[in-house]
């Protein structure tokens, strides 16, 4: 037998230049992915640092006062949390029926072609920037809807109100709620619908008693994501809720109020006023942390609901 060249491990490894390049490219992409972790760390570090300055220096008595007036050392957290909940609540009252109604129609009733025509409407509504909706709330929603309704119940009401801002926030989150809920209903397998039809159920019973219960996790997720977005919405509230400069504790949606997000911008609007001013600057970061935790918890809950849908089907 003649000597045959034997194939070794070395021959199969390919050229070292190629391997080196491969390793380099891979680590490049890994570092790009790591940037997202760094950003999270930066958010937490920068927020916690200044928020700690605030907590350690503020007089605890100033945290429970009649309102939120950071320039007068009145840091009533209850005021801005209440304002946030009122605005988000009004928003959800608008967005839940509209968003879910649209979602059920698109997922269960609309023919594919009709669906292709209708869906872009929601996508266009979703593309409207929140400054535009803020202006819309101020010049259209408030005088034509919010003020007349409020006038009927409480007498004269101001043009700036949490209700007007809340209605606009509802418009903003409706497309989001609709699209997540529609995805969830779309994911319900057809076999369930066919089983219902086979038992003699009609379209409405099938939608309400089979598809919706099967998609309930996704629908919950849609509502929670909507709530999270409503809590984090800034521009509409800053423009239409009327809390510029500060606000007294207020639960009435017909009155002006301050949310957590608007409290942050209210201090920053203008130019260099943010810095300096004693505790006002660190108070921004304390509010920022509250907001971050609120939305993070909501997002994690919704993520859990979404995963449940995915596991089931």
């Amino acid at each position, binding site marked *: 037998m003649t000597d045959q060249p034997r194939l070794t491990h070395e021959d199969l490894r390919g050229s070292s230049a190629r391997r080196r390049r491969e390793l380099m490219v891979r680590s490049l992409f890994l570092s790009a*992915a790591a940037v997202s972790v760094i950003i999270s760390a930066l958010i937490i570090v*920068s927020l916690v640092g200044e928020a700690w300055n605030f907590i350690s220096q503020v007089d605890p008595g100033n945290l429970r006062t009649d309102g939120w007036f950071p320039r007068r050392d009145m840091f009533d957290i209850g005021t801005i949390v209440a304002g946030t909940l009122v605005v988000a609540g009004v928003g959800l009252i608008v967005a839940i029926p*509209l968003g879910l109604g649209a979602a059920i*129609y698109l997922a269960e009733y609309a023919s594919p072609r009709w669906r292709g025509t209708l869906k872009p409407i929601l996508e266009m509504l979703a593309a409207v*920037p929140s400054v*535009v909706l803020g202006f819309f709330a101020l010049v259209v929603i408030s005088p034509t809807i919010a003020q007349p309704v409020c006038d009927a119940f409480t007498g004269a009401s101001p043009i700036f109100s949490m209700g007007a801002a809340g209605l606009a926030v509802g418009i903003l989150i409706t497309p989001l709620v609709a699209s997540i809920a529609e995805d969830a209903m779309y994911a319900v397998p057809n076999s369930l619908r066919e089983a219902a039809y086979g038992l003699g159920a009609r379209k*409405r019973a099938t939608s309400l008693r089979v598809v919706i219960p099967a998609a309930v996790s996704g629908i919950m997720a849609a509502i929670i994501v909507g709530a999270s977005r409503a809590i984090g919405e800034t521009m509409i509230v800053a423009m239409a809720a009327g809390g510029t400069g500060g606000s007294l504790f207020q639960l009435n949606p017909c009155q002006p109020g301050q949310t957590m997000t608007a409290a942050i*911008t209210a201090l*920053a609007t203008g130019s260099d006023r943010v810095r300096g001013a004693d505790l006002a600057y660190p108070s921004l970061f304390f509010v920022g942390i509250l907001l971050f935790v609120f939305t993070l918890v909501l*997002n994690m809950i919704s993520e859990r609901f979404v995963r449940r849908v995915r596991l089931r089907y």
Partner: protein
Amino acid sequence: MADTLRPQAAPPAADLVRRAISGRRVDIGARLFEGILLFSLLIALAILVVLMADVIGRGWVVYAERGTEFLTSGNSRDPAQAGVGQALFGSLALMVIVAIVSFPLGIGAAIYLEEYARDSPLTRFITVNIRNLAGVPAIVYGLLGLAVFVVALGDLTGPNSNGRSIISGGLTLGIVVLPLVIITASEALRAVPDTIREAALGVGATRWETIRSHVLPYAAPGILTGTILSMARAFGEAAPLIMVGGAASFVAAGDANLIDQLFGPYMAMPTLVYNWAGLPNQEFRALTSAGIMALMTTILLVNGIAILLRNRYARRW
């Protein structure tokens, strides 16, 4: 659910069947239900139409009187002279920085997560982290930008403007849309079937060669659509810019060169709209609407391009 299935005290079955097939009964309840559902979609459409009509109704007069001069002149206290020129420049410059920051980082991260990463605790942590970042309110990113780019790095980002520069604003907006870019790019990569990858790996290509020559060309339209949509989102985003100085009311136009402008005070379209909307002067209402027309036209145009691209190159495997 169970009680709907239970047979109720019913007339004899033969009777029921005869009635069911002999006449066409209109189910009013069902029609009503469908009508209500459709109505909620139509409300969304009506809001959109009213919003557009109102904005155009208020703002049209500005274009009718001043034409493109409104689009090129700078801001002013005098409503007859105020225009969106500086804000348009600011927004376009911001978009360039957003693209430079978020595209390579976002697409790179997506390639790592979809093509390289194994299902390890680290990968799962990064993925969950990105999903959470996508849900963080934009204003919180504004605080991050304020603390990092304006205050901590102010000497680098804006030596003569206390750090409140286009650079700071662009970096902040880039971070705001980064999670969105990663998520959309990941989805585009995931849509490429594994058989395509196996074909390349089978003839001895390395991972990167496979990605470059096989995966990216097929995923490109999807990635492009996602990045364009996130640019549209960044273009309309005002909240974080207010925190990092994009709400300067007046910017001395001057004859500063491009570099100085990048490091100097600035304004952007959405923040200019915000500023104008807050002015008590009624004449600024028309200007605000005219500014919104410019803003919305840009955003809808960009969105339209993205949707066209998506439909044109949509591929079914």
